[in-house]
């Protein structure tokens, strides 16, 4: 892949980190949600990344230099299946017959740290794209 395809790689990184950030934000917003449309407390979402070949939108099918590993994509968004956290709150409207309320099973601090990581990696991908863009511009400048 040429330097132009490296732009696509950076873009794929930005996309993937954004999906991850969205899932983490949703987790954080719902860390105390006891009632969802499907019934039961909110279940945490996790994003799984995998490497994916990425070409430039301008590349032909005959681009022989495309390597099998290049960009990244979201392979799956996995919903947590572990048991919810039960808290004893008899007065709560969602309490069950024994007085326990099912809360989402998650650690907000962990998701907060992950969210910061996602934001930082998003910016790293932006920096990569800018560096590649500058190199391409330098090549153009060779045309006096």
């Amino acid at each position, binding site marked *: 892949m*040429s330097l132009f395809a490296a732009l696509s790689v950076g873009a794929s990184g930005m996309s993937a980190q954004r999906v991850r950030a969205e899932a983490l934000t949703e987790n954080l917003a719902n860390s105390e949600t006891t009632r969802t449309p499907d019934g039961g407390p909110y279940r945490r979402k996790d994003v799984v990344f995998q490497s994916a070949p990425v070409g430039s939108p301008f590349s032909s099918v*005959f*681009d022989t230099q495309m390597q099998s590993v290049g960009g990244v994509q979201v392979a799956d968004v996995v919903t947590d299946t572990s048991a919810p956290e039960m808290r004893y709150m008899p007065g709560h409207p969602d309490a069950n017959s024994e007085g326990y309320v099912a809360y989402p099973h998650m650690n907000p601090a962990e998701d907060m740290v992950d969210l910061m990581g996602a934001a930082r990696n998003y910016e790293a991908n932006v920096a990569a794209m800018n560096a590649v863009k500058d190199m391409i511009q330098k090549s153009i400048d*060779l045309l006096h």
Partner: protein
Amino acid sequence: MSFPVSGISGINITDAIRPIAGVGQSSSSGFQDALNSAIQKVESTGNEASASVERFLGGEGEELHTTVLATQRAEMSFDMFQQVRNKMVGAYQEIMKMQI
């Protein structure tokens, strides 16, 4: 009083060209060689540049700097060819101006 008049000898054209040309070739084929070599360069660098541009436009993973450098080389080869050709034309004109 009569002076011995020798026959008119032919002019050695290459000797006349030599000081003007500055190429330092000892025969008239020297100019031809220089011109042929320049033409070959123009052709090869020109073909390489065209092929590189085609590969770039066709998205076959050709690096932009490769294409740019190939076109620059073709341009320089052509400039060089023009200079050799101009020198030849200039030398020819000098010879034509000479009173025989």
